């Protein structure tokens, strides 16, 4: 029967057993989904949001807050944490009753579906987008006497953008209504989203209550990882710091830092199995290896592992660029260059068909940017790596061979 030639992920049945040793325990704790109870390094932001929401609930008024920050700075986690605390306060009877609704722009098939989601969460009713928006309008403009405050979290706000911006407008307009007790927490990645994407009337309704989550510094990242590792002695003293510094230098993304730490525990485990150490520790070397794996571009490795003719074709491209002085060349020019190179090297020259196949292969692994094949000789080819990278990869290759 037919065999699958595409590589596939091996399947695994059933969940993994509970952590056995320290490293596995560490991995479980370092997993991104294992959100800790308290979020370190976000105390100030937490108290700001908490104060904002609590005061609005207590006053029985509505309002908007815009929260921005690069990915992995803990925006969603902090907001969720605030809501959790508020909900437990409410359950203890210290706070008036309120409803919490979450809408994620990424999970909606279409921006206007947001209305449907909100209505469903509020009343359990199902309706079309238009009908839902009418119902919600009515609900927020003339609420019943015993209505409870609603806390609405809008995650990934930029995806709710429509040409008329009616979804954004409505979501920010309802809290400004006199009797609506709606508190909107809008979360997005860019700080200038209101100025860049929204019309004036939408941005003004959003108001000026804004909060920016700064990227974590390396000290904060170190603290985050350390807080998760409390009670476990898995990492070397400076290992966490190294990971934190590397991540902080690039993005300040906590998820990335956790991933690196997790990967380095795996590397440490493999290493310890080889060397037969009982209680392995994650060293600086392991972290370095993990960082290299995650941050290094695979393109140079790919170039090094190409076939001889393909490497020669890359050389021909670089030669043609240097000759013409433009970072783009037509295929026929490259073919001439390639033939010349082959003659110099004393290698059998490929036919046009073979070279076109090579060019397409390099294009489909995105080392080159090429046009559709129907243009054949006039197809323009550009490098998707820098010329220096190509020369570096190929020179090293020659060194190894000789």
């Amino acid at each position, binding site marked *: *029967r*037919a065999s699958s*030639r595409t590589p596939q992920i091996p399947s695994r049945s059933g969940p993994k057993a509970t952590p056995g040793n320290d490293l596995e325990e560490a991995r479980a704790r370092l997993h991104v989904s294992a959100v800790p109870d308290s979020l370190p390094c976000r105390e100030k932001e937490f108290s700001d949001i908490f104060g904002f929401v609590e005061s609005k609930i207590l006053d029985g008024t509505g309002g908007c807050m815009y929260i921005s920050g690069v990915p992995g700075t803990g925006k969603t986690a902090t907001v969720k944490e605030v809501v959790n605390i508020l909900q437990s306060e409410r359950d203890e009877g210290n706070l008036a009753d309120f409803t919490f609704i979450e809408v994620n722009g990424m999970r909606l098939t279409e921006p206007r579906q947001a209305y449907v989601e909100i209505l469903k969460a509020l009343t359990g009713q199902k309706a079309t987008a238009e009908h839902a928006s009418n119902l919600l309008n009515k609900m927020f403009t003339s609420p019943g006497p015993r209505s409870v405050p609603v806390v609405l979290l809008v995650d990934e706000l930029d995806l709710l953008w429509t040409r008329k911006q009616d979804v954004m407008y409505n979501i920010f307009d309802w809290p400004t209504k006199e009797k609506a007790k709606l508190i909107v927490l809008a979360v997005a990645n860019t700080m200038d989203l209101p100025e860049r994407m929204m019309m004036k009337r939408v941005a003004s309704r959003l108001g000026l209550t804004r909060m920016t989550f700064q990227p974590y510094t390396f000290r904060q990242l170190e603290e985050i990882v350390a807080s998760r590792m409390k009670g476990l002695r898995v990492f070397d003293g400076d290992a966490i710091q190294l990971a934190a510094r590397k991540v902080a230098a690039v993005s300040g993304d906590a998820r990335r830092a956790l991933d690196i730490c997790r990967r380095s525990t795996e590397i440490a485990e493999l290493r310890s199995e080889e060397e037969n150490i009982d209680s392995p520790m994650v060293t600086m070397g392991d972290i370095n290896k993990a960082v290299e794996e995650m941050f290094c571009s695979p393109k140079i490795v790919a170039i090094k592992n190409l076939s001889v003719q393909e490497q020669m074709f890359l050389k021909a491209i670089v030669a043609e660029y240097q000759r013409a002085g433009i970072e783009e060349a037509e295929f026929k020019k490259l073919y001439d260059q390639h033939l010349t190179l082959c003659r110099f090297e004393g290698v059998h020259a490929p036919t046009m*068909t073979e070279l*076109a196949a090579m060019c*397409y292969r390099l294009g489909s692994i995105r080392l080159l940017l090429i046009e*559709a*094949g129907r243009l054949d000789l006039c197809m323009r080819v550009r490098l998707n790596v820098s010329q220096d990278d190509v020369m570096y990869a190929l020179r090293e290759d020659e060194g190894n061979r000789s």
Partner: protein
Amino acid sequence: MEIDLAPEPPSEGVADLTLGSQVRCRKYQVQTLLSLFGQRQHMTPGALFVYGHTATGKSLVVQTLLSYHKLPHILINCVECSSPRVLFEHILNNIPQNPDADIPDCDDDDEEEYIQCDDMTSFVRQLTNIVSEKPFGEQTLYIVLDKAERLRDSHIFMLPALLRLQELTGLNICTILISEIVWEKFRFGTGFNEPYCLHFPDYSRHELMEIMCLDSPSTCDKELYSMYINIVLSVFHMVCRDLRELRHLAKLNFPYFIEPVLSGEADATQTRKLWRNIEPHLKKALKSVYLREVSSQQWEKMQQAELENPDLEQTLTPSHRCQVELPYYSKFLLIAAYLASYNPMKYDRRFFAKNAGKVSKRSKLVKKNERASNHLLGPKVFPIDRLMAIFYSIVEGKVVPSAHIYVQISSLVSLHLLSQVKGEDRIGMPKYKCLITLDFIRSIARTVQFDVMRYLYDFL
């Protein structure tokens, strides 16, 4: 190449490489295909790509091979598939019922439900379901896509998915693409399951002879017919290697060739006489019927008339095909447009003004170098003001610039004699281009007694 790999049309020990003498001169290709197909239950390569020039027997070989050996197959012409839906439904509804049916039987379709399908995912699912139920089960199912170059203009997923059909369905399916262009021109996007490419080379002259001699009429001697084919090829082979065209021409002109033999004027052995009789006729056919200036029917009629009355000199080449009846001013407008398109603007003064400036020797020298370039480069764009200026200077008598004149310009545009380049209205200063040939404008200028050559810069 070994022949014992051939599929088991079990009774015959050795495969018949001429497929019951329906296919000639394609021994190597048939052999390759047979060995690729292998036994019925064998896995065939997932995709084959068959390419070659027009009329090199690509479709013929593949189709005859499949139906001769009674292999389950589906034939589709991609030109007919205007949308993916048509293609999918055609395949799904034409899967052969049993292994012995050489043509998918469409009669049963009324009883069964017509299968509907409009996307790739459900196509693959339904195909898997249907094929695994069919009685030919394990045998290779061949899906033949003729004129496959059309698939490139279809949806972007179409070609990659069809090439990978074997892997997607997990069934023994082979997709055969037939096309006239090479595989390089099919590539786009990221990654194909590269098919096995099989080239059908052109027929040589000898092979063309062999094939064309097959359709000799029963009334005619084989020797005589092959001589006739030889003559036909000696005239047409230089310009045309297309088997279909050659066969058509041979069939069309055969009555003329055989006429002296039938009427007893010449013997079948008098080669020279027959040759001298037919050769000018074929030369004439090359000029008119090959270019489809006269239809085959007209040609046959003319031939008949000529045979009945040989003295009658027929005007076979219709030189009037580029003649259109136009109003008087339209003709001048068209001439003016032609002059504006093909003359450089700086020489307008010299041609059309009353007291033309002196032509210096130097400009004459420059002109020599530029000569004929305008007619090679094609028409230039000109504004309507220039057109009207030239028009008023060449037309005789006083013409009122009324609405009639401007309407005539727009009607020339709608007849595709001029083309409007930009500007929709008179106010927006429209620009035009003249789309007609020199012969055409000369014949028009002749009808109004205007010597257009005298005004063309290229021909001075």
